[in-house]
């Protein structure tokens, strides 16, 4: 049954949803009402001179389950930034589980926001944040449940603009059929710009319809509208050229970069769900961008340059966020948190400030070479001591030179020895399999490394009660990285190599029992690789696999490799290209890549040189501490590195817990 919409736009559909809640798992995820969530007046923006409404309404979607999507920082930031605007409103929506999808279809309940239970189709914009390409099928479910045509070309004046953001938008081509626009890069300033433009267009009475508003957005140079570009192909299947098909539309669309992070202290009031989520903590982003230059890392490449939040700015956000949320742990978030120029003063300052309040600190991402025990002790002073995690990524010194992860084996051993010596019992090590030029030997070196870790650990700890967990997954080459030209290792070869590694770890019984081995098989990586480096021809594959039942592809219990391969075979028939062409094929220097017209600021020639350096095992330094190596981002985007130290310190003052003053009994207070 098709979704049936009744009532006025912006009306709550909770009454229709409520009976379904009795029959689904974890119903709390659909009811909203989280602490610090907002439901604004549908017409908060008022009306234009001729009575046209000017409120701009965003439905923000994280295309995964609520428990994964709720803690997402990107969505939380945009939600708050937009809701602060007097003439805009934002509500959230997430992917519904298959049990709920079945009931919604049965009863004709459309995709709703969790905040006001308003129909997603009633909003002006459906903004979808893709951290991973594996959320594409969930977007189609949401569009379909919402009653929005799947194809952008079929949408009418009453349908919202479907706008994508997040890291996947650096190659939006595989979903070009389904999105109206993509916003590339940092979202907080960009959504305000788009909101203003859409608001003006609405207030003018929507002249020229959706095509006109999309054109206005495209003309800014910062919004990509796939329908305004044409792609031509060569007879061998490669792209010949991508060109604007519309006047006034730029050849390349640039990413957005927010400078002065201290001026964007979001989220100020983090959302606190009743339901359990994947991150049971509040997060404060301590810097954005990374120039360590790991060649596999798309995040590090596309978020340059490094922009630090100041120590005092971070201190204020932590204080305000803890007050507003009541979380007992604060994650100091970034791509490599120990690299903040004032990390030692920051962690010490925060640990002093929250002494005795049972508030834990964590650094979700720490480099071996930037880590030390003083830092680790500050992190666990007021909280709980969990395991330590490091990511050497490559098993051998040689492969670490290829990927430019400049961590020596001795560094790693020294660091873990210090950790075990200081009382830690559990160290987790992350690796990748299938890196360019990798052989079995490179991967088997991981087993040797893990054994050395255990042997050293037992020695310094003075007992055998320590563990090391090796976690490994297949490498997926990503756009806008030096490895964008690389051949991905096939699923079979990845699995064979992982199997050999497991055998090697198990072979040594004396230390093997102290080493845990966790791996992800190669199949999901191939689908991710297909979608990461794909082009517009993949739209048919995504639609086919969704029609065949694909949902929640990031979840192993829902993912089906066979379903994807079968859909790809049918949908790509006659194109001359197939899954292997997109994944395990190495690209040449002159090939037009599907994302070349999306400008991340990185100079393609520099990327190519870095790719050659990788093959040559030549390392490149970090421009925060050495001269610029001309990756191209700063001059292209008009940006600059923003780092401390500021030399400031945190005062050991907090109002956390001060609420008790009103509760303490007077006579007891006198006695004290």
């Amino acid at each position, binding site marked *: 049954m098709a979704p049936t919409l009744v009532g006025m736009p912006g009306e709550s559909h909770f009454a229709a949803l409520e009976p379904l809640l009795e029959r689904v798992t974890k119903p709390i995820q659909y009811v909203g009402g989280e602490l610090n969530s907002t439901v604004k007046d549908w017409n908060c923006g008022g009306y234009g001179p001729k009575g046209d409404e000017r409120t701009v309404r965003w439905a923000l979607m994280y295309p995964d389950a609520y428990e994964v999507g709720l803690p997402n920082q990107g969505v939380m930031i945009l939600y708050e930034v937009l809701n602060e605007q007097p003439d805009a409103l934002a509500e959230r929506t997430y992917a519904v589980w298959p049990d709920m999808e079945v009931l919604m279809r049965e009863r004709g309940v459309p995709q709703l926001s969790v905040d006001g239970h308003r129909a997603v189709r009633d909003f002006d914009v459906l903004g979808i944040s893709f951290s991973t390409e594996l959320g594409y099928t969930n977007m189609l479910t949401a569009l379909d449940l919402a009653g929005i045509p799947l194809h952008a070309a079929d949408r009418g004046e009453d349908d919202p603009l479907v706008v994508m953001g997040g890291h996947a938008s650096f190659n939006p081509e595989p979903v070009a059929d389904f999105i109206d626009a993509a916003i590339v890069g940092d979202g907080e300033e960009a959504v305000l710009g788009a909101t203003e433009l859409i608001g003006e267009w609405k207030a003018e009475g929507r002249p020229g319809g959706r095509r006109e508003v999309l054109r206005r957005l495209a003309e800014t140079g910062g919004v990509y509208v796939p329908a305004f570009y044409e792609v031509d192909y060569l007879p061998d299947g490669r792209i010949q050229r991508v060109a604007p098909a519309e006047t006034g539309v730029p050849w390349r669309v640039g990413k957005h970069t927010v400078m002065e992070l201290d001026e964007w202290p979001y989220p100020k009031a983090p959302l606190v769900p009743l339901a359990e989520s994947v991150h049971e903590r509040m997060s404060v982003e301590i810097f954005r961008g990374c120039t360590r230059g790991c060649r596999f890392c798309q995040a590090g490449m596309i978020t340059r340059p490094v922009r630090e939040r100041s120590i005092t700015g971070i201190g204020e956000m932590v204080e305000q966020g803890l007050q507003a949320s009541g979380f007992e742990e604060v994650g100091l978030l970034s791509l490599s948190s120990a690299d903040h120029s004032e990390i030692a003063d920051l962690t010490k300052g925060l640990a002093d400030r929250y002494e005795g309040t049972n508030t834990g600190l964590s650094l979700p991402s720490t480099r071996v070479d930037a880590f030390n025990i003083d830092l680790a002790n500050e992190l666990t002073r007021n909280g709980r*001591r969990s395991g330590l995690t490091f990511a050497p990524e490559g098993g051998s010194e040689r492969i670490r030179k290829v990927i430019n992860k400049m961590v020596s084996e001795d560094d790693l051993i020294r660091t873990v020895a210090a950790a075990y010596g200081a009382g830690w019992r559990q160290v987790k090590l992350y690796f990748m399999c299938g890196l360019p030029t990798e052989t079995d030997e490179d991967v088997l070196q991981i087993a040797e490394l893990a054994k050395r870790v255990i042997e050293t650990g037992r020695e310094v700890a003075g007992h055998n009660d320590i563990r090391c967990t090796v976690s490994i997954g297949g490498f997926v080459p990503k756009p806008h990285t030096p490895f964008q030209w690389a051949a991905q290792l096939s699923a079979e070869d990845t699995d064979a190599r992982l199997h050999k590694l497991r055998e090697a770890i198990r072979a040594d019984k004396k230390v093997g029992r102290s080493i845990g081995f966790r791996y992800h098989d190669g199949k999901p990586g191939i689908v991710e690789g297909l979608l990461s480096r794909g082009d517009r021809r993949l739209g048919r594959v995504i639609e086919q696999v969704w029609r065949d039942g694909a949902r929640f592809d990031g979840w192993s219990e829902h993912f089906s490799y066979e379903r994807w391969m079968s859909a790809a075979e049918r949908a790509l028939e006659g194109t001359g290209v197939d899954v292997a062409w997109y994944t395990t094929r190495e690209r040449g220097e002159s090939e037009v890549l599907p994302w070349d017209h999306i400008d991340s600021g990185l100079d393609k020639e520099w990327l190519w040189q870095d790719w050659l350096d990788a093959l040559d095992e030549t390392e490149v330094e970090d421009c925060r501490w050495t001269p610029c190596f001309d990756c191209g981002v700063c001059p292209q985007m008009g940006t600059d590195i923003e780092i401390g130290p500021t030399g400031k310190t945190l005062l050991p003052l907090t109002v956390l817990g001060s609420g008790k003053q009103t509760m*303490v009994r007077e006579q007891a207070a006198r006695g004290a």
Partner: protein
Amino acid sequence: MAKRTPEGPPPPPAVQKLRVRYARRGRLRFSSTRDFARALERALRRSGVPMAYSAGFHPHPKISYANGAPTGMASEAEFFEISVTEQLDPEQVRSALDDALPDGIDILDVVEAAPGALADRLEASRWQMVFHDIESGELEQVVQAFLAADTVEVSRMFKRGRKSFDARQPVLGARVEAGEDPRCAILTVVVRHTTPAVRPDDVLTALSLVASFAPPRPPLVTRLAQGRWDETTAEIIDPFDG
């Protein structure tokens, strides 16, 4: 093997124990007891209640939960206990905690704990089930058939598999009334707490077994009261009394 003990002084001791009655209303009836526990811990931190913590590497605030209503059912009578490190004014704690919790989880009452375990004061519950599109006469017949039976075996899935138990004996009383709307009937049952607990959905299953009763929509269920069971007056006594 080296025995590890946390560095630093032991946590401050508990000096007062408070008992709290709260309601779970509206859409928040879909929160589970675990959802509530998370929300409560955060609300306690936000409001500044000086909680007593357990010692050790993983200190936890001292809270004990009692007999939470199943997910999806509303309640006017849920209880928990907290231990605090200072002498607090219960009414101030009530209002601060109520402010720090989402609307729909409403703190009704806070008292200093009387001696004995809270769980011992929770012997029976009064549940209200509101049925739509059922006339009270029809429901009355079904309930009479149920009450006439000595035992009604029902079964339900537990964590360790399906279990069968009697849903009739623990039911101490049942009454049917017409709702304001003629197409609405209200069933109130008083159930003694047993192991496994007989829940309103078990009573519903039992009704369907004795009289092939199948309401078109599941009823809206609310726990109205919970407390000691007084055999002589056949009433539930407030656990905060006496």
